[in-house]
C-alpha cells in the first residue's frame, strides 16, 4: 500500500516537473569502495550535525531572549524550566563542537586524498568558506548565553581582530557594534548567528552539495589506476545511504550521551565591570591560533608580534584555501610527497599548539 502511494506521488510530480532524468542520474550514482572509503562519510556526518544544529537552534530560538538583562536568564530558564530544554541546549552546544571537528576531519581527509584537484577546485573553495562560516557560527553562538567566559572570550577575540593592520579597527567596530563588548554586540552576534550566517551557509552548502552530486565521488589516484573490472563500487542508493543512516544514528546517540552525562554549563552571568577571570580560553578550535599569538615575542621585523601573527594566519589561510590553484605548479614527481608533508605539518602545528594551549 505504501509502495502504491509512493508511485502515485512520483507520477504526479514527474508529470509536472520531469523529475525522471534527475532520479535516473541519482540512481546510478556510485561510490568507490577501497581502503580509504571510510572518509567518504565524514562530509555526510558534518551535514547531519548541521541539520541537528538547525533543528535544535530553531527550538532554542523559541525561548531565547537576546539582551543583556534577559539572555542569561532565558538560557537558565530553558535549561531548568522548559520541558526537555536542558536536552536541546546541551545537544546544540555539543553538536556545534562536533560539527566543527568533523568539518576539520572532512577537510583534511579530502586534502590527503587530493580531492581538490581539477575538476573539483570549486568544491574545495566552497568548502573552505563553509569552514570559515562554521568557525564564525561557533564564535557568534558562544556569546549568546551572555556568561562570563563567553563575554571575555568575545572581548579577547574581537581585540585580536582589531589588531589587523589598517582594516582591523573598523572590523572590530563592526563586530562589536561599538567600542566595547556590550548589549549592542549581543544583538549583532544574535543577528549573525540566526540570520546572516545561516543564509550564507545554506547558499554555499547548496552549491557544495550540487558540485558533489554533479561530479560524483572522487576516486583516489591508486584507485583510478586500477582496471575497470577491478574497481569495486557500491550504489549510492540504497547502500551508501543506509550506511550513512547507520553512522548518523550512531553519532546522534553519541551526542545524546554527551548531552545527558556532560551537560553544558550555564556559568556565571557576564559582568562588564568584573575583572577578567583567571585563564580565559577561547573555544578549542581557536586555541591553536590563540596560543600561537601568545607565544610570539612583542616585536618581529619592526612590526608588533600580534600583527605578525595575524598576518601569518591570514596568509597561511589563503595559501591553504587556494591549494587547488597553486599545487599544479609543483613538479609532478615531487607533488605527492610535498603535499603530504605540507598537510602533516599543518595538522601537527594545530594539534601541538592546541594541546600546549590547554596545558598552559
Amino acid at each position, binding site marked *: 500500500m505504501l509502495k502504491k502511494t509512493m508511485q502515485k506521488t512520483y507520477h504526479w510530480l514527474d508529470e509536472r516537473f520531469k523529475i525522471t532524468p534527475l532520479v535516473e542520474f541519482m540512481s546510478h550514482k556510485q561510490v568507490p569502495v577501497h581502503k580509504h572509503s571510510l572518509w567518504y562519510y565524514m562530509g555526510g556526518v558534518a551535514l547531519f550535525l548541521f541539520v541537528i544544529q538547525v533543528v535544535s537552534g530553531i*527550538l532554542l530560538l523559541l525561548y531565547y531572549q537576546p539582551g543583556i538583562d534577559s539572555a542569561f*536568564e*532565558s538560557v537558565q*530558564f530553558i535549561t531548568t*524550566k*522548559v*520541558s526537555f530544554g536542558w536536552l536541546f541546549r546541551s545537544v546544540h552546544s555539543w553538536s556545534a563542537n562536533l560539527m566543527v571537528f568533523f568539518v576539520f576531519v572532512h577537510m583534511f581527509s579530502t586534502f590527503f586524498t587530493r580531492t581538490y584537484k581539477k575538476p573539483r577546485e570549486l568544491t574545495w573553495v566552497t568548502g573552505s568558506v563553509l569552514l570559515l562560516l562554521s568557525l564564525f557560527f561557533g564564535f557568534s553562538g558562544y556569546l549568546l548565553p551572555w556568561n562570563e567566559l563567553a563575554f571575555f572570550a568575545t572581548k579577547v577575540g574581537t581585540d585580536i581582530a582589531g589588531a589587523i593592520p589598517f582594516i582591523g579597527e573598523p572590523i572590530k567596530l563592526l563586530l562589536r557594534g561599538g567600542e566595547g563588548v556590550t548589549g549592542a554586540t549581543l544583538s549583532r552576534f544574535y543577528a549573525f548567528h540566526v540570520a546572516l550566517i545561516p543564509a550564507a551557509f545554506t547558499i554555499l552548502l547548496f552549491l557544495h552539495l550540487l558540485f558533489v552530486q554533479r561530479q560524483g565521488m572522487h576516486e583516489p589516484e591508486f584507485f583510478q589506476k586500477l582496471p575497470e573490472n577491478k574497481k569495486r563500487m557500491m550504489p549510492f542508493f540504497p547502500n551508501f545511504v543506509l550506511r550513512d543512516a547507520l553512522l548518523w544514528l550512531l553519532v546522534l546517540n553519541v551526542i545524546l550521551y554527551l548531552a545527558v552525562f556532560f551537560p553544558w554549563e550555564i556559568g556565571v552571568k557576564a559582568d562588564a565591570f568584573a575583572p577578567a577571570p583567571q585563564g580565559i580560553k577561547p573555544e578549542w578550535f581557536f586555541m591553536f591560533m590563540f596560543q600561537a599569538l601568545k607565544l610570539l615575542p612583542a616585536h618581529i621585523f619592526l612590526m608588533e608580534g600580534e600583527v605578525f601573527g595575524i598576518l601569518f594566519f591570514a596568509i597561511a589561510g589563503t595559501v591553504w584555501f587556494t591549494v587547488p590553484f597553486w599545487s599544479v605548479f609543483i613538479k609532478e614527481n615531487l607533488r605527492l610527497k610535498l603535499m603530504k608533508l605540507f598537510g602533516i605539518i599543518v595538522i601537527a602545528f594545530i594539534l601541538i599548539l592546541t594541546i600546549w594551549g590547554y596545558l598552559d
Partner: protein
Amino acid sequence: MAINRRSFLNAILGSGFVGWLGSIFYPVFSFLVPPKMPEANVQSVNAGLINDIPLNSSQILKFGRTPVLLVRAQSGEFKALAATCTHLDCTVQYREDRQDIWCACHNGIYSLAGRNLAGPPPKPLSQYVVNIVDKEVVVSKPKQIG
C-alpha cells in the same frame, strides 16, 4: 525463509524508525508547550484578588530569586518594595502595630515608601509598581530608565 527474514528485518526497521521518530517528536512537542511560568525574567506577579487581601497586612512575593514585600496599608493603599534589607541582606518585615517596615537583624527601619529612616541601612528599598487589573492585584518591576 529468506523472504520471511527480509520482511522481519523490514518490520523491525520500519517500527524502529517510527519509534525513533516518536522519540524525537515527543521531546520536541513537549518543548514547544510553554511551561507554567512562561517567561525567564519575571516582570510581574499576581498577588491575588483585592478583596482577599486584608487591610494592614503584608505578604512576600517571589520575583525569580528576589523577594518582594507587598503591603496593604490601613488606608487600603498597596505598596510593594524589595524585601532585601540594604544593610546586610536580611529579609525585612511589615510591622502592623507601627505600620512601618522593620529589619529584625539590626533594627533598621524603613517608611512605607521604602525610605530608610533609622538604623544602619544606607539606602532605601526599591519600589515596585502595583496595579489593579480586573480586581486582581498585580505587582510588577519598575520601568527601567535609560
